[in-house]
């Protein structure tokens, strides 16, 4: 299987099984043979220039062809059936080779798992392969003007017309609308049912045979100045009933699906980007001659500690998973998200303070430098995918077992991305 490159001479806090070590060698060998030079050292920017975007797309296709996309999906659906530990290993090896580990975004992380858990075999065959190949690029149409944290309050209607649903209504904050050709959305198909019961989960093509499908995106400019999300209007938009996942009126359960084996995943690599950013700040602080200031040193040491804690929590989780246990009680999506999102916010604030007057000035066309962009963008990380407050409710109620607020029904747990 592998050429058996010797691995990990330093003491490792994780006992990997022989099979896991073999998998690591396999990924390492594949990367040594296949990672293109143009990808080395690439940190995927939020808005890649066209040339880089094209190179990234080529790399994504290479990964897909070699079976390195949607790797946590079961093999029978075109995935690789990797465990959390194996996904972690794969991420570590990509980081070690210094090439980006690309995914198919929301299609891979949200839509695929929902399809795998709830769709018919025919639907799986129809919708999963185009996610892997990149042919289908999804955006998420969940939030509405009147339904954010309380997502189940959504009003967009889906009305049965023969073997089709006809959709009318408005969504908002649709990230990545500009590159998507599919939208996964929640619509109310039964207005008489209880709030969480009358919702359906539908995969809607944005165009049909090259013709518009009644979906209009009106870009919304974010506080960074870029129009990366939109208002989304459905006007008599048609979707075959075959595109409803999990059956009519069953969409809430489908929307709440997350992939169990995602646990582990980025646990041992998520700190890498933060660590890179930390040393970048150290460099800038040094250049400004501030490194000997006691207050600055304490703040930097705080930041370093937070990043290390992210690393330790990840190692601890993967060590437990590798030992064949569930890692129960070791943190979950919510506590992890609270930890990194609040760290990032604070780091950007500190960095701005340390950089002083220069940090007040932007480039032409409102061009932001790294820390200015961080300062702004990180404000959204405690909003999307369940706000920080909603995450705290989830932690308190589901992990600690505290009683629900009698006036509040279950809020959204998982959601989209930037």
């Amino acid at each position, binding site marked *: 299987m592998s050429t058996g490159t010797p691995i990990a001479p*330093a*003491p*490792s*806090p*994780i*006992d990997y099984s022989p099979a896991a070590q073999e998998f690591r060698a396999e990924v390492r060998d594949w990367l040594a043979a296949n990672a293109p030079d143009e990808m080395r050292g690439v940190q995927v920017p939020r808005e890649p220039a066209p040339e880089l975007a094209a190179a990234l797309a080529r790399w994504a296709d290479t990964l897909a062809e070699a079976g390195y996309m949607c790797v946590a999906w079961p093999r029978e659906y075109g995935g690789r059936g990797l465990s959390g530990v194996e996904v972690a290993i794969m991420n570590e090896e990509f980081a070690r080779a210094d090439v980006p580990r690309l995914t198919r975004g929301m299609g891979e992380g949200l839509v695929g798992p929902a399809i795998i858990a709830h769709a018919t075999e025919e639907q799986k065959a129809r919708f999963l392969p185009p996610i892997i190949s990149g042919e289908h690029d999804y955006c998420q149409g969940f939030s509405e003007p009147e339904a954010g944290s309380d997502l189940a309050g959504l009003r967009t209607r889906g009305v049965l017309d023969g073997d089709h649903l006809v959709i009318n209504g408005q969504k908002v904050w649709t990230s990545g609308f500009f590159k998507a050709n599919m939208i996964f959305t929640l619509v109310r198909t039964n207005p008489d049912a209880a709030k969480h019961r009358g919702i359906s989960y539908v995969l809607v093509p944005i165009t049909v045979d090259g013709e518009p499908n009644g979906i209009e995106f009106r870009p919304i400019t974010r506080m960074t100045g870029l129009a990366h999300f939109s208002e989304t209007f459905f006007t008599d938009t048609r979707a075959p009933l075959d595109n409803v996942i999990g059956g009519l009126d069953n969409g809430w359960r489908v929307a709440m699906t997350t992939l169990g084996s995602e646990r582990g995943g980025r646990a041992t690599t998520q700190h890498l980007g933060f660590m890179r950013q930390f040393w970048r700040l*150290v460099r800038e602080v040094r250049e400004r001659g501030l*490194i000997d200031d*006691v207050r600055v*040193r*304490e703040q*930097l*040491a*705080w930041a*370093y*500690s937070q990043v*290390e*804690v992210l690393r*330790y*929590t990840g*190692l*601890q989780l993967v*060590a*437990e998973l*590798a*030992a064949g*246990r569930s890692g129960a009680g*070791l*943190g979950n999506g919510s*506590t992890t998200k*609270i*930890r990194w999102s609040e760290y990032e916010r604070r780091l950007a604030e500190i960095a701005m303070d340390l950089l002083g007057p220069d940090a007040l000035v932007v480039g032409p066309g409102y061009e932001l430098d790294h820390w200015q962009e961080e300062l702004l963008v990180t404000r959204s990380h405690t909003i999307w995918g369940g706000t920080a*407050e909603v*995450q*705290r*409710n989830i*932690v*308190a*109620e589901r*992990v*600690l*077992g*505290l*009683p*629900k*607020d*009698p006036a509040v029904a279950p809020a959204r747990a998982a959601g989209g991305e930037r």
Partner: protein
Amino acid sequence: MSLAVTAEQQELRATVRRWLADSAPMARVRELMATPTAFDPALWRGLAELGVLDLAVPEQYGGAGYGVQELAHVFDECGAALLPGPLLATLGLALPLLLATDDERARARHLPGIADGSTVATVAWLAPGAGWDSAGRSMGVTGGKLSGSASTVLDGMSADLVLAVAGTGDSAVVVAVDPTAPGVTRTAQPTLDQTRPLAQLHFDDVPCTPVGTGAHLLERALDTAGVLLAAEMVGGAQACLDMSVAYAKVRQQFGRPIGSFQAVKHKCAEVLVELEGARAAAAYAAWAAAENPAELPVVAPLAKAVAGEAYFRAAADNVQIHGGIGFTWEHDAHLYFKRAKTSLMLFGDTGAHRRTLADRIGL
């Protein structure tokens, strides 16, 4: 050995927990608190019989040959129970200090007694009235005799063996002293945290045996002590969170459990997030102490600071969540609060640990 908790370690924890519940319940902790030394020889013998005291002593000195990782589990449980007693002084400070020296004779002489429970040991290094960075400044050795004073000596009244650090930098010497020898005066220092007794020691030309040279020995011992203290603080923080959550579920106001108010539940959630981080840091630090000592100088102050902050928050919020009852002497919340704040400060407060960390990562 990996970071994953082994079945053996789980067993160890369960055994210690049972023993604590039987032998040192909170009522017993409170009795001991009220005595000047807060030391119960019977409990110490109990820990010896349990196999806790010899756990991290190498086999050739009569120990079980395990290490900091196992000990950290014990400290975690004892921290949750607020066990008074010279665990930190003996196993957290004196043992690593002896192990840090190359003095084979001193080890052969003292470690078997630590392992079998017959020796309570501690370390004296701080100058009276000075800060955490005053190591060795108030003591000196001339002609094989120790003179000077040290304060803030953990369990100084109950110790059978004192390792004193005299002098600073490369000329610092670590000496072993018998605290019952003529010329030693011990004075108990009443403590804010009554479960953690301290003493001031005065030495007047006291015969002593050198066991090592150089300030780095104490530094290494303090790193190990910080790791174990971090584990102890994680145990304490978990106990506080458990109390908060239990109370928030049953205490009713405005016709509903207070735990249904977000101001209360979000506090609990935040404590959990911090505690999770602290637990990972303490576990990683214990792993590094045992398996990758090169990392210890960085992870020790890091874990100590992270755990200190998590514990303090857990303990402070626990008082707040209990309302008036949480401010009483009768309720246990204040015991944890006092342990939390003073543990956070022990060996240096959060800022001091961060400054150390900044130096050690090369900023």
